[in-house]
C-alpha cells in the first residue's frame, strides 16, 4: 500500500532521509520511533507529499508520487494526517472543522456531511462537542476532533505524527483508545509515537529510526525483547525506564 524505494531527502545540506526502503501493507499498523531529530516526522510527511523528496520513489497503491500527472489533491483525500499540534481550524466549530473537506472536496451535501460528522464525533467519544470551538476544547478533545476530521474523508491510510506528545498525561489514553479502535477495524496506519505500551499492544511492526535511517525493524515481540542494534537497546532502556 505504501512503498519507499531508496528515498533520500535533504534540507539544504542536511541529509534527513538516507536511502529509506520500506513497505507497509494494507491493514498493517506500523509504529515509528527513534530519537528526536532522527527524521520520523519527515518520513511520514513524505507519504502525502507535505515534503518533497530529492531522490528515490514513493508509491501509494502503486501510484508514483513523482508522476507529473498524479492528482495530488485526490491522493491526499485518501490519506488522513493527524498532527502533534492538532491544527484544527480555530475559526470553525468542531462540526465545521469536520464537514469542510467532505463538502468542498467530495461535494457531499451539508446534511449528509453533518450526519457523517455526528457519527464520527460519537465514535471518538465527544458527541456533545459539535458546536464547540477548538479554543474551548481540551487537548485530548481537540486531537479527537482532528482524528474525526481526517476520518470524514474515509481515508485508506491514516498517518499520525506524535499525536499524544502535546497532551497532558491524563488525556493520552482517550486518544490512544480511538487509535486502537481504528487499528482494530483494519485501517492501514503509520504512527510516530513514543507510547511503547500502545506500540506493544497495537503495532504489527515497529521501526526504529536514527540519523535518517531505519536501523531496526521487527514485530513488537522481537523489538522489545530481542533488539539487534545497540542503539535500539540504548533507546529502549532510556524510554522504558520512566
Amino acid at each position, binding site marked *: 500500500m505504501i512503498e519507499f524505494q531508496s528515498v533520500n531527502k535533504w534540507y539544504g545540506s542536511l541529509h534527513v532521509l538516507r536511502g529509506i526502503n520500506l513497505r507497509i501493507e494494507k491493514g498493517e499498523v506500523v509504529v515509528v520511533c527513534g530519537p528526536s531529530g532522527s527524521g520520523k516526522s519527515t518520513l511520514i510527511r513524505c507519504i*502525502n507529499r*507535505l515534503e518533497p523528496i530529492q531522490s528515490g520513489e514513493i508509491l501509494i497503491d502503486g501510484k508514483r508520487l513523482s508522476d507529473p500527472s498524479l492528482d495530488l*489533491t*485526490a491522493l*491526499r*483525500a*485518501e*490519506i*488522513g*494526517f493527524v*498532527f502533534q*499540534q492538532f*491544527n*484544527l*481550524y*480555530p*475559526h*470553525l466549530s468542531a462540526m465545521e472543522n469536520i464537514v*469542510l*473537506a467532505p463538502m*468542498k*472536496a*467530495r461535494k457531499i451535501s451539508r446534511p449528509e456531511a453533518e450526519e457523517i460528522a455526528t457519527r464520527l464525533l460519537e465514535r471518538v467519544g465527544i458527541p456533545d462537542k459539535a458546536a464547540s*470551538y*477548538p*479554543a*474551548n476544547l481540551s487537548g485530548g478533545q481537540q486531537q479527537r476532533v*482532528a482524528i474525526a*476530521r*481526517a476520518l*470524514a*474523508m474515509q481515508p485508506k491510510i491514516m498517518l499520525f505524527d506524535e499525536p499524544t506528545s502535546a497532551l497532558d498525561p491524563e488525556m493520552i489514553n482517550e486518544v490512544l483508545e480511538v487509535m486502537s479502535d481504528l487499528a482494530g477495524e483494519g485501517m492501514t496506519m503509520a504512527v510516530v509515537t513514543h507510547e511503547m505500551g500502545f506500540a506493544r499492544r497495537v503495532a504489527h511492526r515497529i521501526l526504529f529510526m536514527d540519523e535518517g535511517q531505519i536501523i531496526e525493524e521487527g514485530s513488537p515481540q522481537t523489538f522489545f525483547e530481542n533488539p539487534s542494534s545497540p542503539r535500539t537497546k540504548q533507546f529502549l532502556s532510556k524510554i522504558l525506564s520512566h
Partner: protein
Amino acid sequence: MDFTVVAKNIDFLILQGLLGFGNFVGGTFRLAIPAIVLGFILGIFIGLARLARTPWIRIPAMVYVEFFRGVPLVMVIFWFWFIIPLLLRVPLPEYGVALTAFVVFEAAYLGEIVRAGIQSVARGQAEAAMSTGLTPAQTMGYVILPQALRNMIPALVTQFIVLFKDTSLASIIGYVDLTKAAEIVNNREIRPFELYLFIAVVYWLCTYSMSRYARYLERRLTPG
C-alpha cells in the same frame, strides 16, 4: 466665534463636500468608499501574487508594491491627470482619475497588509487543509483567508483611515471634497476658524466610527 457660517453653508459642506451631491464633481465619501472597496479587492490579488510560487506572478507584484510605496500620492494623482490623457489622447474625467489613482496607490499598501496577514496564519493550517484533500485555492479561501482577514483588521483599518483622510489630496485636480468645500466657503465668508474646526470634527467622527466598528468586528470574529 460664530458658527452661523457653518449652519448657513451646511448643505454645501455636507451634501457637496462630504457626500458628493451638488454642482461640482466631488464628495469625500463618493471617492473614499469605492476606493477602499476596489483598492482592497486589488490589494488581495496583489498580496496573493506576492506569495505566489511562480516568479512571473511574484516579481511583477513586488515591483508594483515597491514602486507605488516609493512615490508620493500627489504625484500619482498628477500623473493620471496629465500624463495618461496625453498618452491616450483623450481627456479623462476628474472622478475617474481620482478614483483610479487612489485604487492603484492604496492597493500597494493594502497588498502588503494582506501578504503579512496570510503569512501570520500558522503553516500547519494549510498543511491540515491540504492533507484532507482541499485544493490550494479552497485552502486559501476557507481556511487561510478567514483567519488572515481577522488578523489584518487593525492594520487594514489604519490604512482605510489614512486613505479616507488622503482623499483631500484630490482637490488638487479640482475635485470638491470636504476640505475643498470648506475652502470654497471660506474664500467667500473668511471664517477659517469655525469652518476648519467644523470639518475637523466631521473627519474625526467618521474615522472614529471606523475604528470603533473595527474593534467590534475583531471581537465578533474571535472564535469561542
